[in-house]
């Protein structure tokens, strides 16, 4: 386990290093004024420039003894902390809903798979897995605006001034990973069908619910494996959703700082995201190690 952890940590450090190298590739525009109204733009790209940029980046950290201040004079770390808290109001419920409610709904769908409820649920989870989150968000906005016209009480749709502002982006972002978990769980449970231990359990007279408990325990390994996928999906969609909703969170500022070539700030916003991925990976490994009987993976 300890070795596993060290290996994950090493991978994490290498990925940060690779990301910084990618981030620092020279990409700024160089505009030359030739007198009068004649301007030319150029994108210089040489290895020397790259080295210079890396040196300047390192120098920045040495001089500022940290990330330093942003263009408004606020320490970047303070800014990141504040914005990250806003991000958490979306990420935490979204992750819990997708992993918890998604898995539960998947079990329900599997349990009722031959009944009409299960079929209807399977149909809807299939439909929702084909709707991109940005369309869901735009459609929700369109619908709400139309509803406001016919007299539904108005509430704020954009920004982050009200406590409930996180709800619409959160819903739009949660639907896909949740439906993914529903489909994944029910498929994993269906794969268990026909295993010998189920026949043994049934011949011993166990109830269907009790047998289901055994099956879930056996599927938990592959279900927990999906946490990384769900988290990556959430972190990918979050900046876009924040941009659409004018929800000023860390993701929104990550995008703008990358587009404004503010590398230290971009790294400051990216690091928590990478850390979240790392934490997800380590935690799901830990859970697998603690919760599951050893060699449980042998069945998969």
């Amino acid at each position, binding site marked *: 386990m300890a070795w596993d952890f060290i290996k994950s940590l090493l*991978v*994490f450090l290498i*990925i940060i290093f*690779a*990301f910084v190298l*990618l*981030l620092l*590739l*020279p*990409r700024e*525009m160089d*505009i030359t*004024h030739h007198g009068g*109204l004649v*301007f030319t*733009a150029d*994108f*210089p*790209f040489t290895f020397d420039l790259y080295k210079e940029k890396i040196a300047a980046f390192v120098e920045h950290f040495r001089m500022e003894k940290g990330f330093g201040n942003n263009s408004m004079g606020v320490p970047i770390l303070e800014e990141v902390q504040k914005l990250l808290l806003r991000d958490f109001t979306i990420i935490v419920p979204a992750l819990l809903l997708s992993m918890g409610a998604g898995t539960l709904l998947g079990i329900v769908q599997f349990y009722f798979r031959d009944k009409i409820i299960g079929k209807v649920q399977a149909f809807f989870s*299939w439909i929702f*897995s*084909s*709707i*991109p989150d*940005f*369309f869901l968000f*735009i*459609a929700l*906005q*369109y619908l709400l*605006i139309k509803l406001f016209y016919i007299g539904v009480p108005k509430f704020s749709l*954009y920004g982050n001034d009200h406590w409930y502002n996180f709800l619409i982006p959160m819903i739009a972002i949660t639907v896909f990973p949740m439906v993914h978990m529903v489909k994944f769980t029910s498929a994993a449970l269906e794969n268990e069908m026909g295993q010998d231990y189920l026949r043994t359990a049934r011949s011993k007279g166990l109830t269907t619910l009790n047998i289901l408990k055994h099956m879930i325990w056996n599927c938990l390994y592959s279900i927990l494996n999906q946490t*990384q*996928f769900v988290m*990556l999906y959430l*972190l*990918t*969609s979050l*900046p*876009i959703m924040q*941009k*659409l909703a*004018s929800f000023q969170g860390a993701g929104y500022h*990550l*995008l703008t700082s*990358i*587009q404004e070539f503010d590398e230290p700030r971009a790294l400051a916003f*990216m690091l928590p*995201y*990478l850390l979240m*991925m*790392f934490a997800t990976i380590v935690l799901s490994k830990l859970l697998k190690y603690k919760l599951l009987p050893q060699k449980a993976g042998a069945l998969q």
Partner: protein
Amino acid sequence: MTVLNFCKKNLVLTIGSIMLCFLLFMTFFGEYLPFIDGELQEIDYLWDENKIPVAPPYEPSAQFPLGTDRDGRDMLSLIVMGAKETLLIILSITLIRYLLAIPLAYFAHRQWLGANALLNGLNGFLSYVPTIIVVILLVTIPPLIMSAFRPYFVVLIIAAMEIGRVADMIKLEFHQISKKEFVTSGNSLGVSPFRLFKKYYLPFIYSKLLISIVGDLGKVMFLLGQLGFLGVFVAQVFVQVDAGVFTFENTSNSWPTFLSNAFKDIRGPVWIVFYPALAMTYVIFTFNMLGHGLQKIFR
């Protein structure tokens, strides 16, 4: 009757095929339909009932079923005219992805030239860092921006994003096939690795490849949509808009470009973003249905 029976048995595939036919019809023949304005005429202003000139964008109405954009061009016509390019882009991204992923998977399976390590590294990196951020960082690299072949590079970069995932999937298939007896017999006969790949491995994954390529078309459409919100498109030109101010302008009618102003449009003329996003959803839906239907046939 057999055809009808087949359709009844594979309802999802049938509906998916009908949706695909409609999509292809609109793509290739849509511009000749009477209600489509193939010229994409711009309107500067229209008179309202009080004889006051009103500037675009116009709401959806009888004249413009889906409204107009900020230049007064009919949205429905824009979407129909942009379909060809959009579909071409997603098709080429997906095909390039698979053309590169299949050899990579075989190399990784045989453990040649460190392909396996490359594959693991690629997968490791991309399962940590969100795809769109990597794409943004890569497409803004200067030699690419200024290149005349920029669109091809962008297609290649987007295709490369999921090569790892696809190659990993194919590698697992290869691993499974390599345990079969006929592969062992091929090996003992001294069949060359290339022939082994072509005649022993590939024929067994054709059906699986087809299913996953069709499914990937939808995924690529989704990714392009996300990139559209961030202003990253396949076709762009570099222009000077003011003294000393340079910017990128998109030169195409492909659907993701309508999303670039979503941030502003969503608060006013929401139809400008809603209908292109709806069209993308239709495409994703169609390909997901087809993939699902094909899966049922080949199972």
